[in-house]
């Protein structure tokens, strides 16, 4: 199968190698929600909230924790996204214009 091998410009030999991983400490936050797997923390009835046992409202609250973690990582790593800009753009303006073809 040819997975449509497009004309991907080869990496110029003099370009510095891109690291295989980009480490960012903020990403560690993504591990915090794993705490919700520790059932002994919340497998209890008290304290109840509005008649809802702890087991239930704590886990619903945990959803907020997960959202907080992913949202924070999104915001804090936004500026480090990396776009290849130093490769030659071998496309002429006409070919980018759908109407011209």
């Amino acid at each position, binding site marked *: 199968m040819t997975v449509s091998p497009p004309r991907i410009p080869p990496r110029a030999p003099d370009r510095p190698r891109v690291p295989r991983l980009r480490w960012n400490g903020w990403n560690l936050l993504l591990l915090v929600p794993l705490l919700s797997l520790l059932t002994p923390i919340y497998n209890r009835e008290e304290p109840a909230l509005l008649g809802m046992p702890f087991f239930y409202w704590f886990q619903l609250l945990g959803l907020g924790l997960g959202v907080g973690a992913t949202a924070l990582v999104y915001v804090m790593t936004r500026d480090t996204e990396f776009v290849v800009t130093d490769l030659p753009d071998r496309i002429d303006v006409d*070919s980018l214009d759908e109407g011209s073809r």
Partner: protein
Amino acid sequence: MNDIKVTELVVFVTLFLAVTVMGFVASRWQPGRTLQHLDEWGLGGRKFGSWVTWFLIGGDIYTAYTFVAVPALMFSAGAAGFFAIPYTIIMFPLVMMPLLRLWSVSRVHGYVTPADFVRGRYDSPTLALIVAFTGIVATMPYIALQLVGLEAVLRSMGFNQAGLLGHLPLFVAFVILALYTYQSGLRAPALIAFVKDVLIYLVIFVAVLYLPIKLGGWSGIFNAAETRFAQTPNPNDGLLLNPGNQLQYATLALGSALALFLYPHSITGVLASRSRTVIKRNMSALPLYSLLLGMVALLGYSAIAAGVRPLQNAGTGRTDTNTIIPLLFDQQFPDWFAGLAFAAIGIGALVPAAIMSIAAANLWTRNVFKEYLRPDATPAQEARQAKMASLVVKFGAVVFIVGVDPQYSIDLQLIGGVIILQTLPAVAISLYTRWLHRQALVVGWFAGMACGMWMLYGIPNPASGRAHFGGSAYPLADLSFLGMWHPFDGSTRTIYVGLVALLVNLAVTAVLSLVLRQLRTFNGSDATTPEDYFTDDGDARIRQAMLASRR
């Protein structure tokens, strides 16, 4: 059919027809140059923004079956059914980083399926075929399950006939779905997902605010549930987990979280998005659906408090607990509102069914048809093949539901979760490293599959009187190393089969990789480069790849 609920039916049919029109019109929604290309038909042009992606993936993974089956599980098993919440709490943070890498590399190389990526990463059609095969096999019963959800609604509305007549409404609904998916591709479910989600949010929030007031507050609802669980002979139900099923609860949540984004239909939703930013935003925003799911789960207890008795399915003659949510709405709300709820569940079945059939069709087209049957197929031929395959997949699912006991699709879906996990080393770990050897990955897959199937086969279900494939909770005490060493002898705990099978798979793959690397066995060539995994929308490499693939 003299007890058909007319008002509910009118609301249901009206909304269903509206959605059908949308499904056909969707082909003209932000069209690309041609629909005769797999990127267009199968991935909606790869240009969905944050909102569309949110609705699309939301409709894709929080399916009608989820909204019907999770409360049904709470209704019959109690706290154990709440695993869906920790499952979705950990899922999005876990998969965010790998999905970004998968999106980038797929965008650069024009990969449509996870198997395409494996093909490029290891230059191994065999490994790609295994991944594609696993994906198709795991997805098929999932599609059938959507029909189970849809049928639960139809039977609750009065279409509870025995034999073929009872399946007729389902058949009609699916023919319509098949036609507009054929016509519009991924754009159809993307557009319909808007309607489905607005309906679902509306219905659930009203139910969650209104039902506790009517049924004596949350404490009244939980007390009713506690009383009922105390009366049943089952030792594993109750408002809390017991020492025996806590490990199962946590491992099932973890295993399910790892499995969900390996399913081809979830990946289809991700690859259809426009940029890395869209994915990142969605990983934070999608849990809003989980909040909804948590509410829906608690409706299972509301059904206990309201004294709902599940309907007896006239087709199989068994009590069908999947009908409790439809019946709860039917009994507690005015007919027109129940009709809205039914439409929400019914349309909620169409969206994932469409995406799943598209994903399965993409796998077939890219990794079997083009790889082995017609290597010289043009993009247009690929698109035509995928459209035909999507029809076959959907009719297969209908025939399966009509001809075979629906219980089998539930069993098969259980198996599906275990087997899709076995593609984790090849798909997810390979996103980060090529240390695992391609031959070791194949052998590890076989080991994990064999182990998983063997364990599932050994699990009985006393409640339904079946000796095999009765669940996914395996007693730790029975775990042994080739029958010789029982490390957890005497334990009363149970564990999720999928995770054990994955560990076996990983162990075999790792050891064998070590050996093959020592022997310096060729590990295929890698079509990807490290920067492919960070590329984003607007990158020169992506635009050139796009133009090249159009020619």
